[in-house]
């Protein structure tokens, strides 16, 4: 019988207790160790573990630490902005000289940026203001809005999106 990656990962490591932590025990540890607001998860849960099924980008730190940094700390997105900047740099390096935008949009780094979802909006707007590029499809995909639909030029599309950002509370 084939097991899902997660199941196999748990079974292979039994009975290593730190990996198969129960919700109750986790709650107790969390209560005991949660004096620092930033540390919601117990340390045992955050220690790096060798996990073959984890995506390569997350493997260096451990999946749980990565999830923790992304979603459970007071500063959501810590670490993500650096990833965004790295992906942006890679996207530009790899595709800026393409003559076909559709191929730029099919680039892995670009798709991963879109995959960040709304958290990336202020960073994309910042990029758009400081180093204009064809970010419009990413913004359309994430926001499901298109304030530049009536724009007649690249510059006016940039302006329309920056105005949208300002109108929606982003610091642009």
């Amino acid at each position, binding site marked *: 019988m084939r097991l899902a990656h997660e199941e196999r990962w748990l079974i292979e490591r039994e009975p290593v207790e730190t990996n198969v932590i129960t919700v109750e025990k986790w709650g107790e540890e969390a209560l005991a160790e949660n004096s620092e607001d930033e540390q919601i998860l117990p340390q045992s849960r955050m220690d790096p573990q060798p996990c073959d099924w984890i995506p390569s980008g997350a493997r260096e730190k451990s999946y749980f630490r990565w999830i923790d940094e992304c979603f459970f700390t007071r500063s959501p997105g810590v670490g993500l902005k650096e990833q965004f900047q790295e992906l942006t740099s890679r996207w530009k390096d790899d595709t800026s000289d393409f003559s076909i935008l559709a191929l730029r949009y099919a680039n892995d780094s670009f798709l991963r940026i879109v995959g960040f979802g709304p958290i990336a909006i202020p960073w994309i707007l910042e990029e758009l203001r400081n180093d204009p590029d064809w970010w419009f499809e990413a913004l359309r995909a994430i926001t499901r809005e298109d304030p530049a639909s009536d724009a007649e030029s690249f510059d006016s*599309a940039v302006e329309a999106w920056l105005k949208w950002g300002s109108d929606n509370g982003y610091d642009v």
Partner: protein
Amino acid sequence: MSSRLTPRQEARYPNLVATGYSKTSDKDPKYNCVAWAADWAANLWWEPYSKNKPGMYWPEGVPDSFYVEAYIRAFRTIGYELCESSELEVGFEKIALFEDDILGLFSHVAKQLPNGKWASKLGGEDDIVHDSLEAFKGYAKYGKATRFMKRKDTGLSLPKNLA
């Protein structure tokens, strides 16, 4: 403005430095090589599937496709016809269309200058003038020039940075 691309850009095109080039403008994402080769248009991005998209253009009636045949038809709308070679011909303007080595799609177009050199806009990056169509040899994303087109000299004056 420096007359050279950045070292990182130069490394991308292994044959560019050896065959000779100079940079003629800084990067500008507003236009691509197709617009530049068409009529030195510096405010439009020519691309298929771009109807009603801001800052973009594709000639009416030309099929939406990324294969070089669609680009040939696009250039026909402004007077170009296929020709055999890239040799300089007095009284004619020539362009060279490239197909990439990976997908076999259109990848780039360069326009011949009256002195026989070639003007290229590198996607959304810089404009350059290069001595030879071999400039991009070894760069699979641009591949090689596979089709050539020409039209009678329109008398359109060259942009200041190319004159």
